[in-house]
């Protein structure tokens, strides 16, 4: 099917994609392999082959496994075979694209190495034309002990708090833009993605350290927000375009941006040059990656500053006034257009920062923001559309909910849980937790 959608990645499962924690209890796992799932661009990484292949690395508890035989089967017939080299790598040259089964010959494994799971010696791999597939064999003893719910709760609590704070970065802008202009911005996810990609460009392409790269990205992101408001939304408001029409325009804008990102950045997810791999630090019962601690501290600082700004500064008061009643605000001498512009700058800058934080835990990809857009809506609606504090509270609730719900439901359904909460809140209390009655539709 040509035109109909076929997302490259399963949709948002923020926690599931996070790096597994290796504390003392769950340590010593197992490891293995994965490699390059190159999307039609195998030649970039390997000068050897231009055709289709299956690759992987075989490792046991971090040690490469040499001399193991791996073969590829298609429809029950062996079509290729290879041995792992001294670094545990293997590459199977295939006759063409298609569905294969990669088979690890367990007899060729060293005596002390065994499969982690029964049946783990056969892996289904689909190889695209000109591309390569990755085969992952899990080796080593399965020492992961089944943790009880109570054991997992503190870790999930911290993860949820972090995810909530990152969501808040996006949801505050979304909510303030809605509050001041009435626009339900379906392109807000693309602001987040844009931020992550901007930082990637400064960080990886231009070689800056991630911290200055992120700071520049936030500045550029804020400027892009202003440009969007000046170039698109303000003229539309002047024309008197209806809110639903603007909503649909934002969907069009989301399409444009998302696929421009795909063209520019490509379909595969990539990591930043720094802070991509870290060891967790044990704090009491939980292990936290140092970067996650930094993310949380910065997020809290930024959110407190935003809160203080809204509460104490003249501009913050003006923003709240416009959000409350634009006509009244205008008639009391507030320059509504200027307030909206600045809201766009801050909203986009916050989204950019949120995008960088999100990409640190999930990698940069062109669907990064799109995948959490509905969670942002959930956060905003939960807190009460149009209120900044509501968006913050809503984001924390949604972040904690998605993580803690995995105690009771499968991790792949955590987003479902959050969206059902969204639907229920809209039905029971459409003004949200902190919203006021007058906003009800």
């Amino acid at each position, binding site marked *: 099917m040509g035109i109909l*959608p076929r997302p490259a990645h399963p949709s948002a499962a923020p926690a599931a994609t996070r790096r597994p924690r290796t504390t003392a209890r769950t340590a010593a796992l197992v490891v293995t392999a994965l490699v390059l799932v190159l999307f039609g661009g195998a030649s970039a990484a390997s000068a050897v082959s231009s055709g289709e292949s299956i690759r992987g690395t075989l490792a046991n508890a971090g040690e490469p496994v040499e001399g193991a035989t791996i073969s590829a089967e298609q429809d029950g017939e062996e079509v290729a075979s290879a041995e792992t080299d001294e670094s545990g790598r293997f590459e199977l040259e295939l006759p063409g694209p298609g569905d294969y089964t990669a088979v690890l010959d367990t007899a060729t494994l060293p005596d002390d190495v065994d499969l982690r799971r029964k049946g783990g010696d056969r892996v289904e791999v689909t190889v695209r034309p000109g591309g390569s597939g990755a085969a992952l064999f899990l080796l080593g003893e399965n020492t992961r002990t089944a943790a009880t719910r109570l054991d997992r709760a503190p870790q999930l609590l911290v993860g949820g708090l972090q995810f909530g704070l990152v969501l808040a970065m996006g949801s505050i802008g979304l909510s303030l833009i809605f509050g001041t202009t009435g626009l339900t911005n379906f392109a807000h996810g693309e602001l987040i993605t844009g931020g992550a990609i901007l930082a990637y460009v400064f960080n990886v392409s231009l070689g800056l350290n991630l911290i200055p790269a992120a700071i520049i990205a936030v500045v550029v992101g804020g400027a892009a927000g202003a440009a969007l408001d000046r170039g698109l939304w303000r003229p539309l408001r002047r*024309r008197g375009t209806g809110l639903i029409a603007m909503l649909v325009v934002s969907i*069009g804008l989301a399409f444009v941006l998302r696929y421009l990102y795909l063209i520019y950045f490509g379909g595969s997810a990539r990591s930043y040059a720094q802070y991509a791999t870290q060891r967790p630090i044990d704090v009491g019962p939980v292990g936290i990656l140092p970067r996650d601690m930094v993310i949380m501290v910065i997020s809290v600082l930024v959110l407190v500053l935003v809160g203080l700004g809204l509460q104490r500064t003249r501009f913050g008061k003006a923003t709240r006034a416009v959000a409350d009643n634009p006509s009244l605000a205008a008639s009391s001498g507030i320059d509504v257009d200027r307030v909206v512009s600045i809201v766009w700058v801050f909203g986009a800058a916050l989204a950019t920062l949120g995008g960088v934080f999100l990409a640190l835990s999930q990698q940069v990809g062109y669907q990064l923001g799109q995948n959490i857009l509905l969670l942002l809506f959930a956060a905003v609606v939960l807190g009460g559309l149009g209120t900044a504090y509501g968006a913050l509270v809503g984001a924390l609730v949604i972040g904690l909910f998605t993580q803690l719900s995995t105690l009771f439901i*499968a991790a792949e359904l955590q987003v479902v849980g959050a969206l059902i909460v969204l639907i229920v809140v809209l039905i029971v209390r459409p003004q949200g937790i902190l919203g006021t009655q007058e906003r009800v539709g």
Partner: protein
Amino acid sequence: MDFAVILENTVRALFNAEALILALAAIGLNVHFGYTGLLNFGQVGFAAMGAYGIASGVTYLGLPFGVSLLLGIGLAILLALLLGIPTLRLRADYLAIVTIASSEVIRLTARSATLREQTGGSSGLTGFTQGFYSLNPFERGSYGIGWLSYDANRFFLLLVGWTLVVLSCLLVFMLMRSPWGRVLRGIREDEDAVRSLGKNVVGYKMQSLVLGGIFGAFAGFAFALANSSVQPDNYGTQFTFLAFTCMILGGAGRVLGPVVGAILFQSSLVFVENFLVQAKRGGYIPDAVLDSSDIGAVRFVLVGVALMALMIFRPQGLFGDKKELALDAR
């Protein structure tokens, strides 16, 4: 540049399965949005109900094909009721968020490993089309005129599908001319005025949601049969937005708007793709500007641009009446 190939592929796309699927989905959206003013962003949820209705019905429940069709329609009606009872009192943009969220709930639930037996999990379901194609009266061979020729099974599918489109349009035409349709349009223009005339607004909206949802299920049938499979990730939010674009392009609130929109939309997409492919082959576009693997993405950038431009400069689409669509949320 081979203009003959471009032209041929574009003409072929006029009545292909994608256009059919989008047309059916857009007819449903038109009932919701064009006539009743309901901002349903979860049309793909209804399509998923239809698709999984026949796929699961045949493969998991072992039902005959015809009964599975009824199951699909039944599921779509159930979804409309579940969505409608609580949400039709909400403001338009709230309804949009609830419907889009519920369509994602459906997709994510269907692709979860928990329901692997019923829905096939993330790999979906296949092997349910036999009941449909066993009804095919056409012998093996090629049918159609010139470029618009198809093998027997595809021809049968398209014939049934486009007949369904014609019948659906006829039904919408008659319904919207009836007093019932006038009430729907009244609700779109001014809900309170209709309510003050003693009409049960929520009831009418519900009926509209159910009717449009059934057309959505038809789109799901066509999608599942055309692919011979049901893949959960084909039922993401993008499907709804594409159908929405088709409807806006043709003109919301017009009987033939969504159909013309879908045909035009699909053939323009194919035209752009083929044009770029040919221009690339001819060496008119250097790799630095556009890599051939990016052509698919370029189409969607253009979809976005078209949607924005339409909404800004011609919200009534090709055939719509601008005065009829002065919708606003607050």
